[in-house]
């Protein structure tokens, strides 16, 4: 059982002062094995904070990130799954699932995690899963109105991944979960 936190688009300090208190109290060090971050943190303090939660931190570059050394895309293998990571402002049209599917094919991954639209999405298609963890701070987005703070926790166990999405709606944390199973022939 491997816990992977997918989080991104925090936009601290330009669009949000900090993570919501309720999220902060949930995210404690030592519980999570990997963090994959879609980008737009934007400052070093946020990077350091995420690093303190878990040393295995993967970040791709968002267009506002202070650190320009983050890569445009990244692939990671966790257990039986191959994960792909990309901020998403490079994939036009923004948020278009078919275009994202193309990127998924290009990176040859089972799960593609991308952001930019600040809207949570978990979409399953024949070749895999596309996940958008939304914005962890509920930051303003030109693409989405009424952004609720959200992040995603994936529990990878063998050929199965359970995706938990945590959303802060009207001050309360609501959790939802989605199940995905991978058939051993490298497709979901």
């Amino acid at each position, binding site marked *: 059982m491997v816990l992977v936190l997918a989080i991104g688009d925090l936009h601290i300090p330009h669009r949000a002062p900090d993570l919501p208190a309720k999220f902060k109290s949930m995210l404690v060090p030592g519980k999570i094995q990997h963090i994959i971050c879609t980008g737009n943190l934007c400052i070093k303090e946020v990077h350091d904070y995420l690093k303190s939660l878990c040393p295995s931190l993967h970040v791709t570059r968002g267009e506002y990130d202070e650190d320009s050394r983050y890569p445009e895309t990244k692939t990671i293998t966790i257990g039986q799954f191959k994960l792909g990571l990309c901020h998403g402002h490079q994939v036009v049209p923004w948020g278009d699932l*078919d275009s994202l599917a193309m990127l998924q094919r*290009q990176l*040859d991954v089972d799960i593609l995690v991308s952001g930019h639209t600040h809207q949570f999405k978990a979409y399953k298609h024949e070749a895999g899963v596309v996940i958008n963890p939304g914005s962890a701070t509920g930051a303003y987005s*030109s693409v989405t109105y009424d952004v609720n703070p959200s992040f995603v926790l994936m529990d990878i166990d063998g050929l199965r991944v359970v995706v938990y999405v945590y959303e802060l709606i009207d001050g309360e944390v609501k959790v939802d979960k989605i199940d995905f199973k991978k058939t051993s022939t490298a497709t979901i």
Partner: protein
Amino acid sequence: MISDGVEDEEKWLTAGIAGLQQNAFYMHRALDSNNIKDALKYSAQMLSELRTSRLSPHKYYELYMRAFDELRKLEIFFKEESRRSCSIIELYELVQHAGNILPRLYLLCTVGSVYIKSKEAPAKDILKDLVEMCRGIQHPLRGLFLRSYLSQVSRDKLPDIGSEYEGDENTVMDAVEFVLQNFTEMNKLWVRMQHQNKGPKKRTDLNHFGIGQFWHAIGLSGLLGPAREKEKREKERNELRDLVGKNLHVLSQIEGIDLELYRDVVLPRILEQVVNCKDDLAQYYLMDCVIQVFPDEYHLQTLETLLGACPQLQPSVDIRTVLSGLMERLSNYAASSVEVLPEFVQVEAFAKLNNAIGQVIEAQPDMPVFGAVTLYSSLLTFTLHVHPDRLDYVDQILGACVSKLSGKGTLEGKATKQIVAFLSAPLEKYSDIDIALKLSNYPLVLEYLDDRTNKVMSNVIIQSIMKNKTHISTADKVGALFELIKGLIKDLDSGGDDEMDEDDFKEEQNFVARLVQMLYNDDPEEMLKIICTVKKHIMTGGPKRLPFTIPPLIYNALKLVRRVQSQDENASEETTASATPKKIFQILNQTIEVLSTVPVPDLALRLYLECAEAANDCDLEPVAYEFFTQAYILYEEEISDSKAQVTALYLIIGTLQRMHTFGVENRDTLTHKATGYSAKLLKKPDQCRAVYACSHLFWVEDQDGIKDGERVLLCLKRALRIANAAQQMANVTKGSSGSVTLFIEILNKYLYFFEKGNTQITVASIQGLIELVTTEMQSDTATSDPAADAFFSSTIRYIQSQKAKGGSTAEKFEPIKV
């Protein structure tokens, strides 16, 4: 020679104890045989050991304790009438025949104690007698211990209320008089120690050395010098202070002393002695003693008297600590129960304390600044505990501090730490920054801090806001707040810009940015005012600060636009409100323009595009077009780094793709430019990708979105040409064909539009691409590229899965052979 002195003292102490014990032995023998006369003789001899001047207080105490023990036993003997074979009055006379005065008085006190207990005479008479007779000993050390003995033996025999010694003739007043007199005399002796001539001791010292060393000794003792002597005496005095303080403790235990008696008799007499003795050691200790020993309710009711003594004390007395101690006690008293709070108001505690502090500060014009601040700090803590709702009091204290600080220039060192603590106290107490902002004198105090401390305070203020998650909700408050933290907002006038570490500077400015997020009001008008106020302040920040402070302001404004936008849709007529999207966009435009002074074109371009999208949502075509124009100008003129260009271009294309407010002409101009930029990127692969990205500009999935199949195909074909050119270049420059990835990407784009129903994409064109890729991958000059292989395989799998879907999709994909 000095160490010899200590050794000598040990010797003398041992000798003294030996003498004492020997005489005690004989005394007991005499007592056993009921021989009063002999017993008294030996007891007097025993007590003679206490006549020594050779011992330091510490050692004298040891000797004294042994004598004390023996006297206890003697007392027990005296109590038993049958054994002493004479009346107590006779005994009282008998002991006065002792040769030397010191033993005489010790014995008298001992007998006196028994006398009182026998009740054959009124307690007050005996006590008065004793306390007067002790005047016979004027030597400070000996006198202090003697009177301490008197105090000890008389403790339980005072005519207090409810005690057995109370009577018509004996009242509480008598007890009080007795203790006060003893206290007064002891204090005088104690003070005299400071100025005591140590002459006799020196003579004895000199006798120990031969004549030959006489001059040597004189020379060296001269070296001891006045300062060293003073230090030594102060140390000795401190060892003895509890003897004096004990009297006050005894007073506090007398139950018969009620508030009236305390206020009218006890306290004034104590203070009289304290002030008149003009000794700083005594004054400091005794003031503290009074404060600690007597109950807080009494202090409250006698505040004026107590405080009245303070300015009369010696200037060298650390009155600050005394007053702080008092205020701390009173703060704790207030915190202990809510019921006592009205008392504070009734006695006007605050006013009195405030005045007292003012007087002390006036009386000591040389008091260092941090001293004054400490005093005000204690008063502030007191006020925050006792009268937290009286902001005017808090403001008064701040004001008094300002007057003290004025004319002293900027502070340094200890004082700054004190001031920071002083200013942080209200912030901690009042978690709502609003309240602190109401203190008119608060910013004035900040004026006196140096730049660095100013910044420290500003950070403290922001941290307080962030911690309490307070939202600052009016433009006035925002203005006041930004005035307070101006150390962070702009370079302060006092030149000398100490080089700030870059990381620290970034952290500091990011902090300010986060603060901007905390400013909020539901009312759009007020929110707009807030935004304008913030803008005014951050504009003074200079080019170093603008890239940090402008973006959060922009986003606050964009959030406001969204709020107002939905209101706009409801309101049909033109309202007179000024918070309209148009107005806000004007402000946005002006603000982003300022970034050109830094310059930060990448950031500015992003902000222009964000605004363009917001304008698009408000259907303000000209505004959106203007923002795009600005973004394009920046792209053409300022962004020359190739990597930056690629990112910027994707943002432009992505944003443009979402625009629905543009008419055909405007849209055409902008897309034409965008595709032009794409084709002119430096690296061929970048060109290729940007161009096929542009294909999406001609196909929007919304119901009235543009769906121009031809132009899509044109883009894709152009991309294909670029990809071919790239391949040929690779053949020529590297000797092998480059990666087929570009072709596979283009293939995927073909499939995308094919699926969406673009009739211009034919099965044949797709088939052709598939064959092209396959050929390229199998060619001799092909470089092995597992990523490309995987990509191609997954693409093929995609086509197959589409075929397997059934329905119209399957039909569409059927003809494609893989």
